[in-house]
């Protein structure tokens, strides 16, 4: 195997799904570099990076929940309305009933849980398609928001705003940087190295050859480099700004949910239900419970996203969360999830969300109007999924892979019978 192939295969893990993610990461890097050039370096400036994270953390939080909903084979159209509904109730609870803000946050999460239980009940136990339930929820909770708020905006107190517009605190010696952000970066770098070592150990325990050492080192070097760069950028913002609190919340959620979906029985059940619900049921998976959970979880995350948005804009209003569902769904599909369920990852969805975010941000920096931004975003969504679908029908997964062997002989299988066409040669290969 040539070094190039080694690199392609192993840089971000060895499996096909990782190869797809590698394609997405590559796309993200390309877009960042493109806008960095087009905007004369504005894109990667500290203040822009910080703003980028603050403006998109709530969409990315929604994408986490949406990924699980879509993997289970459902969809949630109500997240924007649920976010707005929870936002207005939390704002009102602090303004009218003077709840202290930490209690108000718990109150908001509880509202999310109740709404989620409502929607999960219809989806899981009555069997109404999630598309319908959440379409109803979209109207219901949008109306609820405007009914409760009288279509007015309600301001929120100072302490509460921290979760949307706060930053890591300043402390310690004057290094010219925000020390907390530097420590966070250091911790992330250590975690990356530790994970790599663990991954090598696991591979060895599976009697498989771990990736060549130089690949591991290269991979770690790239990751640590990116982390160091990001940490320095975030730490060198205007005084008083640094890594945003909403970013921390997002980070914690990404790590926790990635672990849940990848490494626990509950997470695997979601994939099983989305892949083949009847087979999952006959393997002892409690179908109703899984469906209920993903719908409920989505609404809790929507409530959290709503609160972060309200905190950032310092007030809750009637138009909060308009169109969020579409941004979240787009992030998940750009991130490689399958429309039919069963396939997708949290990290992929986050990368998908970041692609959209950087695109949005970069075009705005260039002074492109919202009309044209929407047109471009629509085309990007279509193109990203189309490339993925096309690659799948060709039996390969990696965009990069196809770039590297453009002259390979292909037998294009007609779309009439893709499963057979794929199975036949494989059959011959394994039964010979």
């Amino acid at each position, binding site marked *: 195997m040539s070094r190039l192939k080694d690199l392609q295969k192993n840089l971000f893990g060895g*499996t096909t799904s990782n190869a797809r993610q590698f394609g997405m990461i590559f796309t993200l890097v390309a877009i960042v570099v493109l806008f960095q050039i087009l905007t004369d370096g504005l894109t990667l400036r500290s203040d822009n990076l910080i703003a980028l994270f603050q403006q998109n953390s709530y969409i990315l939080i929604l994408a986490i929940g949406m990924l699980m909903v879509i993997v289970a084979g459902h969809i949630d159209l109500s997240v924007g309305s649920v976010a707005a509904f929870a936002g207005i109730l939390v704002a009102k609870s602090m303004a009218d009933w003077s709840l202290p803000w930490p209690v108000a946050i718990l109150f908001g999460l509880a509202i999310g849980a109740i709404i989620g239980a409502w929607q999960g009940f219809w989806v899981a136990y009555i069997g109404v398609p999630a598309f319908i339930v959440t379409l109803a929820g979209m109207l219901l909770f949008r109306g609820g928001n405007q009914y409760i708020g009288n279509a007015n905006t309600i301001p929120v107190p100072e302490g509460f705003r921290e979760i949307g517009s706060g930053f890591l605190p300043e402390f310690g010696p004057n290094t010219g940087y925000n020390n907390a952000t530097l420590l966070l970066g250091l911790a992330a770098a250590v975690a990356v190295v530790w994970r790599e070592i663990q991954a090598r150990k*696991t591979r060895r325990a599976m009697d498989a050859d771990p990736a060549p050492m130089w690949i591991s080192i290269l991979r770690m070097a790239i990751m640590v480099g990116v982390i160091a760069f990001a940490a320095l950028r975030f730490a060198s913002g205007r005084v008083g700004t640094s890594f945003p609190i909403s970013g921390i919340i997002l980070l914690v959620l990404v790590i926790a949910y990635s672990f849940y979906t990848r490494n626990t029985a509950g997470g695997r059940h979601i994939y099983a239900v989305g*892949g083949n619900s009847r087979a999952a*049921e006959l393997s002892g998976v409690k179908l109703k419970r899984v469906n209920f959970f993903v719908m409920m979880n989505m609404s809790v995350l929507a409530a959290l996203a709503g609160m972060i948005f309200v905190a950032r804009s310092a007030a809750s209003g009637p138009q909060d969360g308009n169109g969020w569902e579409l941004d979240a769904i787009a992030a998940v599909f750009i991130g490689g999830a399958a429309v039919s369920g069963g396939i997708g990852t949290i990290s992929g969805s986050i990368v998908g969300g970041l692609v959209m975010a950087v695109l949005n941000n970069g075009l705005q920096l260039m002074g492109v109007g919202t009309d044209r931004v929407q047109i471009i975003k629509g085309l990007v969504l279509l193109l990203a999924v189309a490339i993925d679908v096309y690659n799948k029908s060709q039996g390969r997964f990696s965009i990069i892979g196809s770039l590297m062997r453009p002259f390979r002989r*292909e037998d294009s299988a007609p779309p009439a019978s893709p499963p057979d066409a*794929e199975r036949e040669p494989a059959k011959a290969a394994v039964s010979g």
Partner: protein
Amino acid sequence: MSDVPILLEMRSITKEFPGVKALSDVNLVVRAGEIHAICGENGAGKSTLMKVLSGVYPYGTYDGQIIYQGAETRFSDIRASENAGIVIIHQELALIPGMSITENIFLGNEPRKRGAIDWTAANRMALDLMARVGLEEDPDTLIKDIGVGKQQLVEIAKAFAKDVKLLILDEPTAALNEADSRHLLDLLRGFRSRGITSIMISHKLNEIEAIADQITILRDGRTVETLDVKADGVDEDRIVRGMVGRELSSRFPDHTPKIGEVFFEVRNWNVRHPISAERQVCKNESFVVRRGEIVGFAGLMGAGRTELAMSVFGRSYGVFESGTIIKDGKEIVLKSVADAIDHGLAYVSEDRKAIGLNLLDDIKSSTVAAKLSKISHHGVLNEVEEYQAAEAYRKELRTKAPTVDESVSKLSGGNQQKVVLAKWMFTDPDLLILDEPTRGIDVGAKYEIYGIIQRLADQGKGVVVISSELPELIGLCDRIYTVFEGSITGEIAREDATPENLMKQMTSTKKMLTR
């Protein structure tokens, strides 16, 4: 036969997929008006050859020549081959369930009058075509409301609507019961007498022996031989020898059962249909299973064997009415599949692709899917243990796959079935219920699966085998129950089991116990 004109000749067909040579130098000669069977194990290249013939793989993607009706043809797609009178009927029927028989027969081929579909003419023609295939139904009946046997006939009627000259049937009787299969074979004989040529791919060697004039055997993508059934005096053993390239001394591994005490018992089991509640699917059924015993369930399709098995397996079918399950002397109540698994039951379904496996999964995660708790600690999965478990089963069951990271959708039927068996063996069951465990699996893999079933029994587990193939039940089982219309109508010991007496009890409500 050599004086009969040749209808089709495929000359040194070679077809490559990236990295795999699916066909190399395959030759096939089909004479007009004969029934030509193509035999071979899964992966031997039968379906690929038929796809080359019918234009699924268009001209240019393969090497070699196709001579049809005396001229070389170069089909660019299926439509081109159908226009030439070559129609292929796939194993998975291509019918739209929510449309009527007429609509399906003329789908894509609708008779028109001034641009609009002429339904009067269509219905009249449909009735005519249905008569030719012996299908008595109202042409307005929806496909989903008729049985799979009749659906098969609709497919053939659809082929006739296209003026077929060469009919290709891929595993036509795989999903049919005995009666429907016999009807279909009679139909093919009728076609032969009217000069229609058929090519038939089948794993059911007894049918091939009964009906085919010529048999071409493929192995590993090559033509092994073409046999003339009458002239060469071909029988099943002769075909098997050609397919596997060696003599299979027996279709079943030798086995001396070590049967212990009764440990599992179902008493007076009553279940109703999930939708139409007045229909009773299981009528007061009772049966017992002993340790180390392989128990067969024989019955026609629709007799309620699968329904019985699934309703016992954690009420995964129908509406439970009454009945008790006794295991190891204690009554147990299984309200969900999870309960059933916890109590040591396993159910391998008859349709591994639709409800047995998540085809998006790899071998590894499929193997552990029914008992994740075994590889997790405090709810966290251990990838290394998962890998080791899957790898152990891959070796033990000799599943042919490069690694356990391989997607199950890429495996052949026999190897997929081994993954399903591994998945249920991994749950450490005491009782395994295997529903059609060898459906769509080739001869060599069947033999291996039989061996696995016998080993499981020898470990002291009870094994229940549901099968529509009587020779399989007779060869494998220590005791056979017969089921008819939701009732157990008989219990036959191995020594007394013959196809005749099984068939008699599978088709009558009268209880005839031979023990």
